[in-house]
């Protein structure tokens, strides 16, 4: 009985506990149903989106970049159909065989072949590894034909930036390259990190980045978890970027760049009527074509080691003492100050002011000198004398009105101001009062005075036209109107005639005469000394110690249409500059005649600028081997170039303590035998 009750009790316990278990099971079932309902209904939207973003991969197609056109509509920067070969390592069957076949088809060197092999072995599966870019059509076709035996190899068509004239437009247009980390942080959009996308890194390419960029195309694909593409879902074509049209005359730009030859210098040519900048050549330069895949280490090393700073745009960021090229402007300020142009001074090779004697570049003296002779013979004494009388407060405002010490509203990354010194400026900068010798130095464009070639060209244009011409780079189809400078016609006439006499009369630059019937060029020479007489005579010795050669010009002299400036760094004197100006202007009026002169010279120099750059590069690369440190990223590079430019053209650290002794100007070295 006891046992039966107990057994019965156990059965009751069992039933109770089975019920508990059943209840637990039912509870868990309800919990699961509720949980599933919550995930699938309440959070459906969220998970649907997550599943979709898992499934669909958006691949951007880099847009074709807008063209950069010259004033005649010819491309200075265009896009070249680019053939490239990529590999998806995961799909490759026989890695070694594929690499061998590809190396044969693409004519790889053993080192390149090994490099490719290593890259493929280290690559992770499904992402494409570039094999070769910029290959020619024959190689592309050869690879395409062999595709059936090369699984995983993908020949692709893309576009790369192409600059037909290469180094001639390097500084002006800049170059393109893959976005850096800094640029991506500034503009965090997926396009910037899309393989094959290139953005403007310098010059106009950078200034007009948004306008040139265009709209990326897109490819929506379905991908597996490991990234393998299953199928294409949707395709959208890219929209090419808008073109920009410059005032630059492409052939003239190329000619000027090539005409600079072995020298380091710049040429600016402006249209006097519109202010159009037709040419802004700065050499030596770099080839922007070779930068679009990033600057190679050898290339960067070569460029940064060159003391002629090929990475600096000398038109905007080269600052030079303008030397005697300021004399027409100073004369104009004298006229403005009420000086009679026929008033004379006797030049005996120097001028005594107080207990000091200031020398003229011509130690034998110029005899009796009026304003016109002061200009065309570049007599220093004439300017010393009248500057003492009229004072710096007459000269400095005129210099500024003519464009010196100014920047212009141009789409460029930076332009340097230079210096137009006056008493207030000196007091603030050095804490010293203005001295007589400061005026003396300023009237001959030395001492503290600094200008860039663009400012010199603007000065020439404004003096020639009497209009406040503003330079411009973009052709917008409108003819700009300029304010008059307020020069009386006879003043302009006088300066024009005197500057014409520099070239066509008894002046300092007879060899600058244009070899063209009926067109006469006016100009003014300048020789800017870099170091004192005690270190160098300015004509020979180390390159860095030689004088800068300068020349400003306009033509035709009696009805100015084009004006400009040429600066040859350390060219040994103005004689290095004006033959360049002569040939550039000759090319403008008679292209064939200009080219004949250039071709003769290029035969001596060893080819065009582009050919010489390529040859230099090959030579340098052979000598350097691969043992070269990598280049800095583009952002650092830009900063560095700025710094270099500033260091290379400094204002004097301490106040100038005396007068500069002007250099001889009449018998310069011919530019063609300037040593490299």
């Amino acid at each position: 009985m006891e046992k039966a009750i107990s057994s019965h009790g156990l059965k009751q316990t069992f039933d109770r506990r089975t019920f508990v278990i059943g209840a637990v099971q039912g509870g868990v079932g309800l919990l699961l149903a509720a949980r599933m309902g919550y995930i699938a209904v309440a959070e459906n939207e969220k998970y649907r989106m997550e599943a979709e973003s898992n499934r669909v991969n958006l691949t951007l197609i880099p847009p074709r970049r807008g063209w950069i056109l010259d004033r005649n509509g010819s491309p200075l920067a265009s896009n070249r159909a680019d053939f490239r070969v990529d590999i998806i390592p995961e799909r490759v069957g026989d890695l070694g065989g594929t690499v061998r076949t590809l190396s044969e088809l693409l004519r790889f060197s053993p080192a390149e072949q090994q490099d490719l092999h290593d890259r493929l072995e280290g690559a992770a599966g499904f992402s494409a590894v570039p094999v070769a870019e910029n290959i020619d059509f024959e190689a592309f076709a050869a690879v395409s034909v062999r595709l059936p035996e090369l699984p995983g190899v993908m020949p692709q068509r893309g576009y790369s930036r192409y600059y037909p004239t290469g180094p001639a437009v390097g500084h002006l247009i800049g170059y393109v390259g893959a976005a850096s980390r800094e640029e991506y942080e500034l503009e965090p959009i997926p396009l910037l990190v899309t393989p094959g996308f290139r953005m403007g890194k310098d010059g106009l390419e950078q200034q007009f980045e948004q306008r040139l960029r265009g709209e990326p195309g897109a490819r929506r694909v379905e991908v597996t978890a490991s990234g393998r593409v299953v199928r294409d879902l949707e395709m959208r074509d890219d929209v090419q970027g808008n073109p920009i049209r410059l005032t630059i005359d492409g052939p003239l730009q190329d000619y000027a760049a090539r005409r600079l030859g072995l020298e380091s210098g710049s040429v600016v040519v402006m249209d006097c009527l519109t202010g159009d900048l037709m040419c802004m050549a700065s050499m030596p330069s770099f080839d922007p074509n070779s930068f679009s895949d990033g600057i190679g280490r050898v290339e960067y090393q070569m460029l940064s080691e060159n003391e002629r700073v090929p990475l600096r745009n000398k038109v905007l960021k080269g600052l030079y003492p303008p030397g005697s090229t300021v004399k027409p402007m100073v004369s104009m300020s004298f006229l403005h100050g009420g000086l009679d142009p026929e008033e004379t001074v006797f030049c005996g090779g120097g001028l005594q002011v107080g207990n000091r004697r200031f020398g003229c570049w011509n130690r034998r003296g110029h005899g009796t000198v009026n304003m016109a002779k002061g200009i065309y013979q570049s007599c220093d004494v004439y300017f010393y004398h009248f500057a003492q009388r009229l004072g710096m407060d007459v000269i400095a405002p005129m210099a500024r009105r003519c464009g010196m010490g100014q920047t212009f509203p141009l789409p460029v990354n930076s332009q340097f101001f230079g210096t137009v010194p006056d008493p207030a400026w000196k007091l603030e900068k050095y804490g010293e009062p203005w001295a007589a010798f400061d005026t003396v130095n300023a009237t001959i464009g030395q001492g503290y005075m600094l200008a860039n070639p663009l400012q010199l060209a603007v000065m020439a244009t404004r003096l020639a036209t009497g209009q406040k011409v503003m330079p411009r780079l973009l052709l917008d189809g409108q003819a700009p109107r300029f304010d008059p400078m307020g020069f009386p016609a006879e003043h302009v006439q006088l300066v024009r005639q005197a500057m014409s006499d520099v070239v066509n009369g008894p002046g300092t630059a007879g060899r600058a005469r244009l070899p063209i019937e009926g067109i006469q060029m006016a100009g003014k020479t300048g020789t800017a000394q870099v170091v004192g007489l005690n270190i160098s005579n300015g004509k020979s010795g180390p390159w860095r110690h030689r004088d800068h050669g300068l020349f400003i010009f306009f033509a035709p002299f009696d009805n100015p249409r084009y004006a400009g400036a040429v600066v040859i760094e350390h060219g040994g004197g103005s004689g290095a500059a004006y033959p360049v100006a002569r040939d550039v202007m000759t090319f403008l009026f008679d292209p064939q005649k200009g080219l004949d002169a250039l071709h003769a010279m290029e035969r001596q120099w060893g080819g065009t600028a582009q050919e010489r750059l390529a040859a230099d590069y090959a030579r340098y690369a052979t000598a350097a081997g691969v043992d070269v440190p990598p280049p800095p990223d583009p952002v650092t590079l830009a900063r560095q170039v700025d710094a270099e430019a500033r260091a290379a053209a400094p204002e004097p650290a301490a106040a100038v303590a005396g007068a500069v002794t002007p250099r001889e100007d009449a018998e310069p070295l011919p530019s063609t035998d300037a040593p490299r």
Partner: protein
Amino acid sequence: MRRALTLPAPLAQIPWIMLIPLTALVLFGAAVLHSAAGGSMSPYATSHLVRFGVFLVMALAISYVPRELVLSGAYPAYGAVLLLLVAVEALGAVSGGSQRWLDLGFIRLQPSELMKPTIVLVLASFFHTIPIGMISSWRALGPPLVLIALPMALVLTQPDLGTALAIGFGGVVLLFLAGIPLRWFVGGGVVAMIAALLAYFFALHDYQRNRVTVFLDPESDPLGTGYHITQSKIAIGSGGIIGKGFGEGSQSHLDYLPEPHTDFVFATMAEEWGLIGGLFVLLVFGIVLRWGLEVARAAPDRFSRLLAGGMTATIFFYVAINLMMVMGLAPVVGIPLPFMSHGGSSMMTNMICLGTLMMIDRWTRNSGSAQL
């Protein structure tokens, strides 16, 4: 009685009320496996159906085993499976790696799977044999704990935490049903918590510990272990109410879902069939488990009651842990979903459980008719 009139006796004794929904579930599982294989019957769906057929026959065969044979075979069966576990350990040690299965040619047999029904059987047999009055004494508790601990320890060293827990769960449920006083469970619960903490810090493998950590905070490792749970939830959640349609599940077809044909087969299903498919699966399991408990309640004696209750609990444990895992309510422990996941061992275990339940159902009918 109407069924007995319309069907021949052997067919009438088959519990159609459970078997028809179950077959529907297995067919549904085959459809999901067909989709998981990328729209193909091979390699999963065909073998899934074949196995179900084979093991259904086996289950029917089991249902004819007489009670005395089961009772007398309990301890030998337990001993044999225990030996198999030791043999697997030894094989693993010899081959220099961990091993969970024995290759029998037609099936890779996991002895740890066999242990799940066996532990229920041996414990039911034990409580059947001890005097009823002893149930509240420690002597009713000690031997079963040893019987549970031995296989758990062996399975844990494989290491296979999921199966070890399943064995432990089956055993504990049996103790509960056998009428062990509740205070032991409360005390045991406290001890188990302490043991779990100790185990977490000292005994678990790094990957197991990691799974627990990630379960508590899946976001901490979205690309590693948490990836499984995250992707599973995305699959279930993106299915919505009616699902994306048969063969349209992107999560499973594009490899985002790990193990779409085994542990995460429910997520594969839910993505394509939605909440409706999920409720169907829950409903079928509900029917099967309810039928199991009814068999247990109706069973004529203590042994068969305990056996039936334990078998039901074993199936329940599979279902509950798997579904909680794929919905992010339990850590990833690698337990397949009965009758849907592709895999021979789990199908066999679950069909043994079902066969045993059908066997007890038959005993009940027979004793009932004998009494009548």
